[in-house]
């Protein structure tokens, strides 16, 4: 009875704290130097139908935004801002009452919108995860601390990247990837020999897949891949691309090695005199089942990331073939390299574990 009561207190506390944090960030405009306007009401002024050269119909809408300042010396003053947006809202936005916006003064009495204030909704959605974790019997501490440690490592990576001006990008990524996979393995498996074996397998599989793929790409002279389409055209194109591949495949390969290795280790504990060959074969059998779903995970993530730009190309009168070539050639290359890694992980992990595993003396 007491335990149940304690759980309810915890859940209520979590909900309370998250709501408090959300409300606090909603009203945190005092922390900002830029003027912030809270929107009281909006009125549509005009709506004009337009057709572009590709016969797409869209509407250009002008809305008048009535709001008041929530910070700076003007706090409480009323303000009216005119906003024009396309109904498809690719770059511009339709503003709604109770949203908050960061504005800047362009000429006396005229303000333009710089950005929507989004901090409260981010705090709220992260809070939602925390509440859900508290509602269920997960081991929250380990999960949250591993996410936090990884975020800190990532923050360090970005700082180093900014200092070194992307010159050593790939090297930095490799170091970061090693660090975050060590954290992930230690959190899930504990600081054991099992974790070491899983780490070796993941490291080898990823390295072999990457080196092999890079070699293959050079062999074909990088033909047909638009490396210049990398996010924001960031230089060096190839380095940025490879770093993105490493980060994106890492989680999946770690998942795979852990699954295979833990099953094989368990098998060794149950049947002590199992031969290395049988272990290797079982590893291959387990791995076979994992390959498909893991490739699927990355497939959908890659497609989702590019959905906006694909649609923009399609709507601008490009054929589906040209669109996919321009927008998804990088994504597909990324997916292929990752898939090679996922496939290679199966024999590599099975081999390493079957050679290294020993029966634990209990």
């Amino acid at each position, binding site marked *: 009875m007491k335990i149940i009561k304690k759980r309810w207190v915890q859940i209520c506390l979590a909900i309370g704290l998250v709501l408090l944090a959300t409300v606090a960030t909603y009203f945190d405009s005092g922390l900002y130097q830029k003027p912030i306007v809270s929107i009281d009401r909006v009125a549509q002024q005009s709506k004009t139908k337009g057709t*572009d050269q590709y016969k797409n119909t869209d509407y250009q809408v002008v809305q008048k935004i009535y709001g008041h300042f929530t910070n700076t010396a003007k706090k409480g003053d009323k303000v009216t801002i005119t906003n024009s947006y396309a109904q498809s809202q690719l770059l511009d936005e339709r503003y709604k009452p109770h949203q908050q916006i960061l504005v800047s003064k362009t000429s006396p009495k005229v303000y333009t919108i710089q950005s929507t204030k989004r901090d409260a909704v981010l705090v709220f959605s992260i809070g939602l995860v925390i509440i859900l974790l508290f509602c269920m019997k997960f081991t929250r501490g380990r999960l949250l601390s591993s996410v936090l440690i990884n975020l800190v490592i990532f923050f360090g990576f970005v700082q180093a990247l900014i200092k070194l001006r992307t010159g050593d990008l790939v090297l930095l990524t490799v170091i970061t990837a090693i660090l975050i996979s060590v954290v*992930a393995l230690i959190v*899930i498996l504990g600081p054991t020999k099992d974790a070491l074996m899983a780490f070796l397998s993941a490291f080898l599989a990823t390295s072999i897949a990457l080196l092999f793929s890079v070699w293959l*790409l050079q062999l074909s002279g990088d033909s047909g891949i638009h490396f210049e389409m990398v996010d*924001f055209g960031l230089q060096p194109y190839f380095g940025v691309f490879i770093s993105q591949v490493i980060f*994106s495949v890492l989680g999946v390969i770690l998942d795979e090695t852990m699954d295979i290795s833990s099953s094989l280790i368990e098998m060794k504990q149950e049947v002590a005199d199992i031969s290395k060959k049988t272990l290797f074969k079982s590893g291959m059998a387990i791995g*076979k089942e994992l390959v498909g779903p893991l490739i*699927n*995970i990355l497939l959908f993530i890659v497609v989702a990331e590019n959905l906006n730009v694909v649609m923009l190309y399609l709507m601008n009168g490009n054929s589906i073939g040209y669109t996919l070539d321009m927008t998804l050639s990088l994504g597909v290359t990324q997916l292929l390299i990752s898939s090679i890694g996922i496939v290679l992980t199966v024999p590599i992990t099975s081999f390493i574990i079957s050679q290294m595993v020993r029966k634990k003396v209990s």
Partner: protein
Amino acid sequence: MLYLLITFIVLLLIVTGQRGLSLLLGLGINIFAIIALLILIADGFNVVVTTAIISVIILVVAIYMNVENSVTANISFKTSLVITALILLITIPILYWSSTQGMGVEDQEELEGFSLSAGVSFPQLAIATIVVNSLGVISETCVAITSGLNEIVMNKPTLDQKTVFADGFSVGNKILATQTNTLLFNFFATTFPLFFLMNSLHYGWQEIVNDKLFGAEVITFVVCTIGVILTVPITAYQVSRIDRKKIIASTKEQ
């Protein structure tokens, strides 16, 4: 790229044998489904409805072609449908509030020469993006938890419903941790170029936390994680309710 494709297919067939053929078929169907989704949206069909329908097709392929045990497949499919619906329900209000659709000012250079009033509803496309992003993770999580729990039930058919439900969380712990990692590392992959760019544009923390692209990535990560978390109780509930004899019979079939 052709070399990569050939290498992938050859390696896949060597490692997985005959299974590789059905894996390739499954991947092929999913890719076609996605291309169909793109064409339908471009032709002006309602984005959310089209995404929902295509998602169901993708889930059928992703689950039934990868899972041999029929009980596991049925439970996973039901769960993944519920989760996809829940993700839609969570995503719509959050995106309405956050306005993180479309592209950011950071993309502007890339967009030169494009007609930007393209007539597609980008707020709706943002919803589709999150749903598509979650499909792989959700189907894999559903299958992993269901088969893990089924194994427990098979080894100890006498367990009562409450214990099975509670066991779902111990199976779920590890899966939740690995899937969170996958999602988090993909968040890293997409955001490090963004952070680098923000630095060269001299963004302060105020601009970063309110940035559209950053917000969109955070929300994608968070909503997919919520989907993974919710999978655990829903799967555990279903496995604990189902007739034990069915689970045992289905494993004997193979």
